[in-house]
């Protein structure tokens, strides 16, 4: 399933939950694991200086400094490396999202794993930071491979998935997400939930829809799931179609709770898509913040 996994980390405790899953996945699939840390912003002048993203301190940038950062990473993940597999350590100065995407491309990674945040914070404080504009969002939007985002320690997911939830808004990018979810489910032999939430708020221009209209639209959405996704599955019958009405990210979280989902797969839309057609762009961010299980963002079929 995965041959090369890139784990993007800032080597802080905020990435511990993601680190554990990265090591477990790499061992499970006998994959090559690269731990990558973009440690600071390089100076623009002739002097090779770097300003740390974590502390704000400036230092002389050279091979010794990079080696020191790698050694720090190795010390941080010593226990996990001893328990699971020995990873490759990589470190670089630059813009985190750009460098992560560059390395993923260069090493031909088939999965990027990252934590949702660079810092551990209060849940209440997270509303100020949000996710918009952060490294996670940029990577999830542009990566050619699936991006697995982990926001908190997962107690029930991994070693094997039991319940994969694929959330769709029927966009083109959602088809790539489906292909990944289906591939995972059929590879593992677990249950695949095909889920859609009717966003009533955006559909009726301020006029609340009647019950009959909602029921008709739910039936239409079920048919659409059958046509777009179920027809693509060969002999796989361990699936369930569910359509709820409401705010997509709220309904998805409710559904994940109800079925004890241990992986949510959805598309993180690219900028080219019409925002009205791409309900799941903001949904991914809302779900990632709150999900008890990992969220896989898949935008392109290139690396599936």
């Amino acid at each position, binding site marked *: 399933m995965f041959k090369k996994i890139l784990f993007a980390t800032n080597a802080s405790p905020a990435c511990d939950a993601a680190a554990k899953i990265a090591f477990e996945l790499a061992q499970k699939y006998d994959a090559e694991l690269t731990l990558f840390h973009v440690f600071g912003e390089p100076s623009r002048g002739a002097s090779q200086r770097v300003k740390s*993203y*974590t*502390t*704000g301190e400036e230092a002389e940038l050279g091979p010794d400094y990079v080696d020191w950062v790698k050694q720090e990473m190795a010390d941080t993940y010593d226990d996990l490396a001893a328990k699971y597999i020995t990873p490759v350590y990589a470190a670089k100065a630059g813009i985190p999202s750009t460098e992560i995407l560059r390395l993923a491309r260069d090493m031909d990674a088939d999965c990027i794993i990252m934590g949702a945040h*660079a810092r551990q914070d*209060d*849940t*209440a*404080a997270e*509303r*100020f930071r949000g996710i918009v504009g952060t490294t996670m969002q940029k990577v999830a939007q542009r990566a050619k491979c699936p991006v697995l985002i982990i926001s*908190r320690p*997962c*107690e*029930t997911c991994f070693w094997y998935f039991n319940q994969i939830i694929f959330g769709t808004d029927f966009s083109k990018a959602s088809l790539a997400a489906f292909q990944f979810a289906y591939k995972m489910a059929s590879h593992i032999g677990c249950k695949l939930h095909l889920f859609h939430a009717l966003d009533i708020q955006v559909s009726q221009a301020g006029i609340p829809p009647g019950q009959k209209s909602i029921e008709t639209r739910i039936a239409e959405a079920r048919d659409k799931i059958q046509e777009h996704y179920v027809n693509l599955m060969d002999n796989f019958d361990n699936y369930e179609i569910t359509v709820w009405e409401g*705010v997509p*990210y*709220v309904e998805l*979280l*409710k559904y*994940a*709770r109800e*079925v*004890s*989902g241990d992986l949510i797969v959805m598309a993180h839309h690219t900028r080219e898509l019409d925002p009205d057609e791409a309900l799941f762009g903001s949904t991914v961010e809302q779900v990632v*913040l*709150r*999900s*008890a*299980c990992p969220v896989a963002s898949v935008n392109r079929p290139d690396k599936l």
Partner: protein
Amino acid sequence: MLMEAITLMPDGWIYKKDKKVAADILPLLSSTICLKKGVTLGSFFKMAGQYPDLVRLSDYLAPLLEIAAAAGSHSGASEDIQKLVFYKTIAMKGFPGTPRVEIYNSLKGIQDEKKILLKFFQVESLVHHELTLGKLEHVIFGDGQDMFTYDTCYTLFELVEGIAWDLSFCFNPIQCTLRR
């Protein structure tokens, strides 16, 4: 009693000047709220149920209300916390990013005077815990190393919206909580 203060009772009704507020709640959103002794998180949900306009303040309140209603009186209270505290934080941040001030409200559990994040708890296990209002915490350039506390007051809007936000992180499957 503060001027313009309203009081939340254990049964979920709000009182203003000793009179039950039976209908329009929206004009009271900016009123200072006090909690009568015996108010629990369950009282908060009863309030949201009795004043449906409050549910519109957050996308998460309606599903949380369903969870709390389903829990009823049968759910066990978590023994990992003794009570709940709602409090305000003013945090001055110097780095990373440009310097800024963040002001936000939090709901946390209290165990032996220590604050505990609620995102790993089931909402059902919190509804019977006492809900209290805490002091304002002023964090200066750091993660709680330099902190002052002050008495303050909270509006009804802050209480409803702040609790809904923090509990929106509690949509955990039961098996996750059990294993943890």
